[in-house]
């Protein structure tokens, strides 16, 4: 993997001060007088730059507070760029902590040495990179392959900004943008304010199995890319080349140069690794392994008349059964008026794509093997039914609670997409039930599967116990 590009070498005598005026960034975002870089840890011929805003801006731009906070054991710093950088300069730097997940001291030293430059004793390697390495356009991490990135984004090659600087500033927050052959560094859907908080998705990969690594030196993600790069390099061995050539002699398409080649290798660089970790977090947090009924709600809202009535009727019909309430959009649980176990998917799956959140819900639902699944107002729950309802219907009874939205709209899309799969559905009102029966010309048997709140107590136990939920 080649990621070092030499553009310009600063004049050792000048301290490369010219570049101090070229950086992008908000000049007002940093107070040099309050947080100057420690002069004594800078390269000797760059100490006069210690208080220049450009260096401070670089430092701030590359900072990843959540990554830093994990190293120094200060969770409160995780969401505060300024506090994290100030803490870094005050104590973390001297302790060897990394303020940026995109700086690795060992990688930097190695790549610097390849250019015949060394970090002098007493000089901090990170500050050396901010002053010398940045101007050298030296990428100090295995998590960014400049050649690969430029091949995918050729417009950057002639732009005013160094490709790595662009990645640090913007690219690492872009969903799915891959800086190496190994994928997007666990990119999912960055939180809306991820860029403001400087919390790119790659931090999740850096902190995965954090307890197994000295984060000041390396991380799960970095180790994975290094090992993956080793596997790629091994393909150049004479033995592997011969095997490929032999196969290509049979099928020439094998040797065609790839237009674009992705490399995936679990356990480290697989798109489903972090979803797996999220699923395991949920399972362990939940604790229980069985639920008779799983109710999927958005969370953060009242249960509503339909769900409350359905829960009461189920409890009446099966007083000893356990109910698990799953929130998908807000961890605040609704009060169903009955005893229920709860679990939240919103927080552990933050940053995941809709598809992966769906896989998380699916893992939970199949994991606790319920006899019954009830979807009540959760868009993700409805998607579970519409995507996998056919399969799940073989394994459990499917049901739903139908209620008009806050602005009074009927849930016709959900109803149309899923009613055929449902053993029963409760409507918030009798009027809604009648409207649905009339709108879809439901036959008597189908209409009987629609239960209004008023009829819930009497009708639902019969539907539940009448064989509809043998799963």
């Amino acid at each position: 993997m080649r990621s070092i590009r030499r553009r310009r070498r600063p004049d050792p005598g000048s301290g490369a001060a010219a570049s101090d005026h070229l950086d992008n960034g908000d000049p007002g975002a940093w107070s040099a007088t309050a947080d100057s870089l420690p002069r004594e840890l800078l390269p000797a011929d760059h100490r006069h730059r210690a208080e220049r805003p450009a260096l401070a801006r670089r430092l701030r731009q590359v900072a990843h507070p959540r990554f830093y906070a994990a190293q120094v054991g200060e969770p409160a710093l995780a969401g505060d760029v300024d506090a994290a950088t100030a803490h870094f300069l005050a104590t973390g730097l001297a302790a060897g902590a990394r303020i940026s997940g995109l700086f690795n001291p060992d990688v930097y030293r190695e790549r610097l040495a390849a250019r015949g430059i060394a970090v002098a004793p007493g000089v901090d390697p990170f500050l050396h990179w901010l002053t010398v390495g940045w101007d050298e356009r030296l990428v100090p991490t295995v998590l960014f392959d400049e050649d690969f990135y430029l091949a995918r984004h050729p417009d950057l090659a002639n732009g005013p900004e160094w490709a790595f600087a662009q990645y640090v500033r913007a690219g690492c927050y872009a969903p799915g943008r891959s800086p190496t052959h190994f994928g997007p560094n666990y990119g999912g859907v960055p939180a809306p304010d991820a860029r403001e908080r400087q919390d790119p998705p790659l931090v999740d990969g850096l902190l995965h199995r954090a307890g197994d690594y000295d984060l000041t030196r390396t991380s799960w993600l970095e180790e994975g890319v290094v090992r993956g790069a080793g596997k790629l390099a091994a393909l150049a061995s004479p033995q592997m080349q011969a095997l490929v050539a032999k196969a290509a002699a049979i099928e020439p398409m094998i040797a065609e140069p790839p237009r674009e080649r992705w490399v995936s290798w679990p356990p480290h660089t697989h798109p489903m690794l972090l979803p797996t970790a999220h699923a395991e977090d949920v399972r362990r947090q939940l604790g229980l392994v069985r639920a008779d009924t799983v109710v999927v709600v958005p969370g953060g809202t009242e249960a509503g008349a339909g769900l409350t009535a359905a829960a009461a009727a189920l409890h009446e019909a099966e007083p000893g059964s356990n109910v698990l309430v799953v929130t998908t959009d807000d961890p605040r649980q609704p009060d169903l008026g009955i005893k229920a176990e709860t679990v939240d998917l919103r927080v552990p799956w933050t940053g995941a794509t809709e598809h992966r959140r769906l896989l998380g819900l699916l893992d939970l639902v199949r994991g606790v093997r319920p006899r019954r699944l009830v979807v009540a107002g959760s868009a993700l729950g409805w998607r579970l039914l519409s995507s996998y309802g056919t399969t799940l219907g073989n394994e459990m009874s499917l049901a739903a609670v139908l209620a008009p939205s806050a602005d009074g709209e009927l849930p016709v899309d959900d109803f149309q997409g899923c009613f055929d799969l449902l053993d029963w559905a409760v409507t918030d009102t009798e009027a809604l039930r009648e409207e649905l029966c009339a709108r879809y010309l439901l036959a008597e048997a189908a209409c009987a599967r629609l239960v209004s709140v008023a009829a819930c107590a009497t009708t639902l136990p019969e539907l539940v116990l009448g064989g509809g939920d043998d799963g």
Partner: protein
Amino acid sequence: MADVAAIITGHAEGVMAGLSFRSLLDAVEVARAGGLEVDVLVVLDNPTEATRAVFAEAESRGATVAEVSYADQGKVRNSAVELSTADNVAFLDGDDLWSENWLAEAHRLCVTEPAAIAHPELNWFFGGQQNLYFLPDQTDPAFDPALLRIANPWDALCMAPRRAYLEHPFTARAVSEGYAYEDWHWNLETFAAGFVHRVVPGTIHFKRRREGSQYVQARASSVLTRPSDLLDYAWWAERDRVR
């Protein structure tokens, strides 16, 4: 009893199957040169005339040819296992290729570790995609088996003891009922039963990616694996308890 049954399955691959068969014969030659006894079996499932024609002279090359009518890859493989008698069974799809060292190196692993299911180190995709997929080794401490609940890290083109296939036959595909991914399910079941999925360093499977493949069709139709203990939280809780 042979050491290895090298089985190629075909359906509508046409002349492409000839390339796969050549690749298989190369691997058989290398394995035999290393002292292994290898049976070659061709199992054609409702083959097209073009595919059948490819194997018209297979018996003269030492292969046994069988035709079945399942329209289901899992059932075809189960049937092939029944037809074989070798200690270990290796499958090749009729449009993919093996690196020529596959049978010899995979067998070396299987005899060393009787519970091992051998996978290639690398799946080299060609055709519609040109990606590389390095398969995981279950014994790698970094490997989290919970991945099996979310994704399928291995495919069925492996070498396994014949008993693995007999004790855990592939389940039937039933897309209309919402079930497919029988190879994923087989991996779940064999993992739960104590078989160990290992990779064989320095081996490659060259896999043709076509839009019409069964895998691509399954992905597009929102199907799932059949239930398995490995999808059950109770299995994982017990695993946590004994660790």
